C-alpha cells in the first residue's frame, strides 16, 4: 500500500472516528441535559443525534428522543390539549418500537405510548364541548391510532369508540337543541354518530333511546314551530312529515324498551310516540306501566 493510500485511509478513519465520537457526544449531552432538567438543550442535542445515519436506526436513540419530548410535554405542555411535543414523542416511541429488533426497549416504548395515548383520550373527553369538540375528535383519532399499537384487542378499542361516539353524539344533540334553526347540521351529525354506534353494538340502549328521541323531538318540533296562520292544506303535509318522523323513532324506542322495560325515559318516549300517532290505547298502556313502576319506588 502506498504511503498516500495509507494517509487517505487513516484520514477517513479519523474523520469517521471524530464523527462517531461527535454523535456519541450528542447523545451523552442530550442525556446529561435531560437529567439536569435542561430540556431545550436536551432536545437540541437529541435532534442533532438522530440526523446521523449511524444513529438514525438505533431504537435506543429514538426511545431517548421520545422520552425527552414526553418530558417536555409533561413539564411545559400538559395544559395544551394539542401539545406538539406529545405528538412528536408518540411518533418517536413508535419509531423506536418499529426498529427495536432486540426488543430491549419494547416494554418501555409500550408503557410510554400507552401513557401518552391515555392523556390524549382524557383530553378528548375534556374537550367535549361546543367550542373544542373538533380537538376532541382529533385527539381521539390519534389516541386510537397509537392505542392499537399497544393494545390491539378489538373489544377494548371498540368499547372506547362506543363511549366516545356516544359522548360526541350527545354533544351534537345539545348543540342542535341550543338553536334548532341555525344548527341543523348537528342533528345530522348526531344521527350519523348514533348510527355508527348501532353498527358497532346494535343493542346499545343509550344509542337506541337517543336516536329514538332525536326523531321524536324532531317530529314534535316540526308541529310546534308552525304558526297558527298556517293553512290547513300545508298543515296536512306537515302532519304527514311529522308522523313519518314518529314512525322512524318507534323502532329505536321499542328496541330500547326491549333492552330495559323499566326505564322511565323509554316508557315516556313510547307513550309520547303512540300519543302522537293518535294511538291512544297504546299510549295509555305505556303511561300505566310508568305509573306502576313509579309506585313501586
Amino acid at each position, binding site marked *: 500500500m502506498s504511503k498516500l493510500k495509507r494517509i487517505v485511509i487513516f484520514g477517513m478513519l479519523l474523520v469517521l472516528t471524530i464523527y462517531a465520537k461527535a454523535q*456519541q457526544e450528542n*447523545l*451523552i449531552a442530550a*442525556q446529561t441535559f435531560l*437529567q439536569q432538567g435542561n430540556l431545550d438543550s436536551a432536545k437540541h442535542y437529541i435532534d442533532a443525534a438522530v440526523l446521523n445515519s449511524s444513529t438514525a436506526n438505533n431504537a*435506543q436513540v429514538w*426511545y431517548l428522543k421520545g*422520552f425527552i419530548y414526553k418530558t417536555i410535554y409533561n413539564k411545559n405542555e400538559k395544559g395544551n390539549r394539542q401539545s406538539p411535543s406529545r405528538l412528536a414523542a408518540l411518533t418517536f416511541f413508535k419509531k423506536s418500537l418499529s426498529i427495536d429488533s432486540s426488543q430491549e426497549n419494547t416494554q418501555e416504548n409500550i*408503557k410510554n405510548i400507552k*401513557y401518552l395515548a*391515555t*392523556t390524549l*383520550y*382524557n383530553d378528548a*373527553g*375534556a374537550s*367535549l364541548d361546543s367550542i373544542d369538540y373538533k380537538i376532541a375528535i382529533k385527539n381521539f383519532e390519534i389516541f386510537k391510532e397509537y392505542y392499537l399499537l399497544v393494545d390491539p384487542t378489538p373489544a377494548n378499542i371498540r368499547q*372506547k369508540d362506543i*363511549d366516545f361516539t*356516544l*359522548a360526541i353524539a*350527545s*354533544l351534537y344533540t*345539545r348543540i342542535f*337543541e341550543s338553536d334548532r334553526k341555525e344548527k341543523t347540521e348537528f342533528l345530522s351529525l348526531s344521527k350519523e354518530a348514533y348510527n355508527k354506534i348501532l353498527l358497532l353494538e346494535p343493542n346499545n340502549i*343509550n344509542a337506541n*333511546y*337517543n336516536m329514538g*328521541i*332525536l326523531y*321524536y*323531538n324532531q*317530529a*314534535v*318540533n316540526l*308541529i*310546534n314551530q*308552525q304558526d*297558527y*296562520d*298556517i*293553512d*290547513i*292544506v300545508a*298543515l*296536512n303535509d306537515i*302532519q*304527514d312529515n*311529522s*308522523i313519518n318522523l314518529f314512525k322512524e323513532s318507534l323502532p329505536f324506542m321499542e328496541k330500547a324498551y326491549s333492552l330495559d322495560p323499566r326505564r322511565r*325515559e323509554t316508557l*315516556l*318516549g313510547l307513550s*309520547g*310516540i303512540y*300519543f*302522537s*300517532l*293518535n*294511538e291512544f290505547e297504546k299510549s295509555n298502556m305505556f303511561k300505566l306501566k310508568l305509573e306502576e313502576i313509579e309506585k313501586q319506588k
Partner: protein
Amino acid sequence: MFIAFFKMKKILFILLTFVFFSSYKVVLPDQSEEANAHVKAIYIYNFTKYIEWPQDYKDGNFVVGVMGTNTALLNELTKMASSKTVGSQKIEIQTVLSAVDVPKCNIIYILSDNSAQLADVAGKLKGKSTLIVTDKPGMAKLGSAINFVIFENKQKIELNKANIDKYKLKVASTLVEMAIQIK
C-alpha cells in the same frame, strides 16, 4: 454513559387511567300533548278564516268557549288568542262548565270528556250563530258542525254542512273540500 441511562431508566411511572366520558346525557322527550293541541289550535284558527259569522257576531271579542278538561289545549288556545286576531276582533277563550253556562260565543268547542253535553249545548244555541266543534267519533252526526277525528294517524276534521247552515254560518268551499263530509 449513554447505556447507563437505559439501565437506570426504571423511573417512577405515573399511573394514568382512562377518565369515563361524562358528557353523555339522556334527553327527555318533548311534550307530545302540546304538539297535538297545537294542531287543533291551528285548525280552530283556520275555522275563523273559512267560516263567516253574521254581523252581530263581528262586534266585540271573538269568543271561543271551551267545555272540558285539557290543560295543554287550553294553554295552546290561550297562546293563540294572545298572538292572533280575527279581523279587528280580539280572541277571547272562555272556559264553559256546562250547557247552561254557554255564553254568546263564535265557537263552542266541546272536548271529548264533555261530549255527552252536545245535545244540551245544541239546544241552548238554537237560533244563534255559534259554530259547534266536537272531539269524538260520531259527533258530527249528532249535531256538531265540525268534529275532530283521527284518520291514518292524522288529525282530520269531519264537517256536517247542514249543522253549519242551521246556525246561519257561511262556510268556504275550500274547508268543505278539505274535510270528511258527514250528512
